């Protein structure tokens, strides 16, 4: 509520529309759904809610907000609201349902509005976890533990005097389960708001416990036993115990959502998460893959195109329509890898529909579990029957069919490593024309992947002549061509990046290390409808934190090479 009020304060003075019965001030994505904040005329509207495309009610929390500012401004009764929904639906499938006093309902499509103004509180700390009366009495709380066979991660707060916590994880009977090996104290304004300013700011804690050769009992109560400076011991009940391997994605969010790596102490403490992450995403994780061929297989393909699908799957219709249109693809194998069990049924249905309308054979590899971008591609490449592979994102659509032959010709040269393409947004501006290492102020010493000249009209970005080709160390895997043997020689994409990040630049550096040369084919144009902003500066979400962890992994592995690239300017754009 507090957060909402402060946001509303920021919105005061925004011009208000008098015509519409409902005004949406903010519509933004949260880490697990959407939030819609706005107000309505209380003499016209009786209620608001969220519905799906079929007008079926969604699950949401509705909070009313006093909007005296609107009442004063317009001289009419008005009521503010916040709708918070946990959902996997896309925003395009969600509508704002407005019930009017005349009995009619209106369903309004939603779009992102002032999304940048809604910085979701970085931790579960403030957004989801309430401070109960018992917490206030005990002046401490331990929200949850994420446990593995060897470790436990604890998140909570305590109004203590110490800078660091001493304590153990114990059973109800007081038996020791494990001891603290790493910890990080975290600022919690929500606790201060409830307990008063005298409570210190860094009252929150993130703690890594190493277990003493015992397992945390399933279903049993466990406690975080904390020693105060006075020598007094306080037992804080762990409210929820999550087995790490049971829900990797949910636990990853729980693990990282209170981490604020832009603070130096937090960044330094990154190893705190590693023992848990190693269990959430084991390096050797494999999964069952089932290949279904639609319309047979292409005999002796000139190239195999590998396209992972995650989340949105309708791109398949547009891509296959494109491949079906041009004869140039006649001897090209198309392999989709469905890295998302949630969409398996929908993909099957679409593949069935397309089996009548698409003449070109295609194959779909269904993975039993989500393994992430790199591993999904590794599995796809294993299925490829051509000597040349094309890695393509599902949201990439070629301009015409000319790119493939040009890129293949380059990739076939003996010393050629990876060949990348010029990728464009739908308005013919640059999305990718080669990558370069960049630093950002918040994370000194870490290199990230920059897309130089992103958003420039393409005619303002020169193409080398006479051949539209340049040497380029780092390339995006959204579209690239290489020999299958080379992909295998470097061991495929590295497994240590969580969810999918940096695998492409990592492989580029592996290929360079083997003595090959990577090329950028500026003449090969494809559209990349990059949907999610991959802007690093938007901090404050667990996804951002995953990127930071991956960046640390990437930089440790390639520190020397990255510095060399930057110093030599080899990777720079003209």
């Amino acid at each position, binding site marked *: 509520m507090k957060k909402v009020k402060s946001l509303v304060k920021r919105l005061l003075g925004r011009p208000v529309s008098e015509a519409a019965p409902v005004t949406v001030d903010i519509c933004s994505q949260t880490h697990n759904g959407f939030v819609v904040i706005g107000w309505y005329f209380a003499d016209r509207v009786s209620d608001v809610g969220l519905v799906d495309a079929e007008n079926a009610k969604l699950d949401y929390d509705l909070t009313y907000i006093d909007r005296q500012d609107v009442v004063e401004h317009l001289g009419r009764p008005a009521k503010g609201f916040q709708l918070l929904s946990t959902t996997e639906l896309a925003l395009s499938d969600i509508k704002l349902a407005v019930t009017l006093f005349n009995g009619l309902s209106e369903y309004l*499509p939603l779009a992102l509005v002032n999304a940048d103004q809604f910085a979701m509180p970085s931790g579960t700390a403030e957004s989801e976890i309430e401070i109960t009366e018992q917490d206030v009495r005990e002046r401490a709380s331990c929200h949850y533990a994420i446990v593995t066979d060897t470790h436990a991660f604890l998140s909570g707060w305590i109004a203590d005097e110490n800078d660091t916590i001493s304590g153990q994880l114990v059973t109800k009977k007081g038996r020791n389960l494990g001891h603290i090996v790493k910890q990080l104290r975290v600022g919690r304004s929500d606790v201060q708001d409830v307990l008063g300013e005298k409570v210190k700011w860094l009252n929150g804690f993130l703690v890594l416990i190493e277990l003493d050769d015992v397992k945390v009992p399933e279903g049993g109560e466990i406690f975080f036993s904390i020693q105060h400076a006075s020598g007094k011991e306080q037992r804080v009940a762990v409210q929820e115990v999550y087995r790490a391997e049971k829900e990797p994605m949910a636990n990853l969010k729980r693990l990282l959502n209170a981490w604020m790596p832009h603070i130096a102490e937090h960044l330094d403490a990154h190893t705190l998460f590693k023992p848990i992450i190693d269990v959430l995403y084991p390096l050797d994780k494999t999964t069952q893959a089932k290949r279904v061929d639609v319309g047979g297989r292409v005999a002796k393909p000139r190239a195999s195109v590998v396209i992972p699908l995650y989340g949105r799957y309708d791109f398949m219709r547009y891509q296959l329509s494109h491949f079906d249109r041009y004869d140039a693809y006649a001897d090209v194998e198309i392999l989709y890898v469905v890295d998302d069990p949630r969409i398996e049924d929908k993909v099957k249905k679409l593949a069935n529909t397309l089996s009548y309308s698409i*003449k070109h054979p295609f194959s779909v590899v269904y993975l039993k579990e989500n393994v992430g971008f790199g591993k999904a591609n590794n599995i796809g490449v294993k299925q490829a029957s051509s000597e040349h592979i094309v890695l393509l994102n599902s949201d990439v659509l070629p301009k015409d069919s000319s790119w493939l032959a040009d890129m293949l010709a380059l990739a076939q040269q003996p010393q050629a490593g990876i060949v990348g393409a010029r990728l464009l947004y739908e*308005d013919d501006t640059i999305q990718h024309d080669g990558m370069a290492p960049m630093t950002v102020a918040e994370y000194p010493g870490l290199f990230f992947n920059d897309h130089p000249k992103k958003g420039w009209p393409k005619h303002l970005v020169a193409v080398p002549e006479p051949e539209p080709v340049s040497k380029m160390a780092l390339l995006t895997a959204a579209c690239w061509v290489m020999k299958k043997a080379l992909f295998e020689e470097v061991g495929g994409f590295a497994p240590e990046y969580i969810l999918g990040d940096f695998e492409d630049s990592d492989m580029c550096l592996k290929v360079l290390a083997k003595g090959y040369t990577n090329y950028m084919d500026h003449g090969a144009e494809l559209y990349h*409808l990059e*949907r999610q902003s991959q802007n690093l500066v938007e901090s404050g979400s667990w996804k951002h934190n995953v990127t930071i962890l991956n960046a640390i992994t990437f930089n440790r592995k390639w520190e020397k090479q990255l510095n060399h690239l930057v110093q030599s300017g080899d990777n720079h754009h003209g």
Partner: protein
Amino acid sequence: MDKVVFISHGHPDLSKGGAEVASWNLYQLLKSEGVECLYIARADEKSHGGSTFSQRGDEVLFHTKIQDWFSLSSGNTKALFGDLGKLLKSFSPDIVHVHHYAHMGIEIFSAIRRAVPKAKIVFTLHEFMAMCFHNGQMVTKDKLKLCNKAVFSDCHGCFPQHSPGDFFLRKQYILDHFSHVDQFVSPSEFLAERYVEWGIPEDKMTVLENVLPDVEPIAPRALSDGDKRYRFAFFGQINPYKGLDLLLQAIALLPQAIRSKIRLDVHGANLDVQQSSFKEKVTELLEEVEDVVHLRGQYDADQLPSRIAECDWVVMPSIWWENSPVVIQEAIRFGRPLIGANIGGMKEKIEGKAGLTFEVRSAASLADTIKRAIEPDVFDHWHAKLETYACAKSAHLKFLRSLV
């Protein structure tokens, strides 16, 4: 040209839109020329025993639907590529003339190409559906402003739930399937230019006016002494795009001396199915000018001559571009000059040829134009011009014969 298949998104007995009527007229023309024809009209999904096809008169009804109106993709690729494909293959036409993909799916062109690879595929454009998700109107969604060009980010502005990238995909998908069309036919230069600018190759575009059945011109209404050309008629759907509200506003602006003599007949229906705000607006305006306006309701084709005979001028006050409205052709053929808005297909077909134009969306300009039009000499001038009208029949025959 021995065998021609027509594909329409509706049977004119069941739905009397411009595209259905245009395809029907051409079908009748080719039959009269001795060409063996098969007319396939899309119908709703229900059919005997769930069969894909049924029959109405000599025509085949094709029971199918569109699944996704955004990408215009078929909900039943099996019906399109399987059943329709087999029917086409068995009939073995040398031309397939498509008059719409609506309700069937944009994949219909690929389906035809695959079934009868050697046949020429002709597609007649009727509005902007391929480039504008707003019912093909090229008018913005909320404010109904005229739109000159489909720019992805602007389309996203009309439909925030679809990203600019989605509109890019939509266009690419449509162009993939349009690539199977051998010749596009546009009934107006205006529409042709818009589509060429959008992405259809110029050498695949032919402008040919819609074919109308033969009719005899009707003599102008006889005037008694001192009488003027006071009778105006509106033919068409009553919806926000056709601009009846604008015409009623224009009448309300006329000086009482003229207004007391004028009569407007409204031949059209469907006000009851419109959105409440539009309905209220039109109802209010109708009350305001009830001394002038007669609501005549829907009419059948055979009632048109008698209804048109009653009027002096036909008014087309549309607020969208229009393509080549059948009403314009019919008015010209029956010998009635027109008053139309000065944009798009109306400007092309009326200005300097068949009557007067006024500043689009301006009730004042329309009122001024009506004042001019009542003068008998103005009427006589434009009426005389209508006699030079050339029928598109022979042009269509020549065009189709040139393909095979």
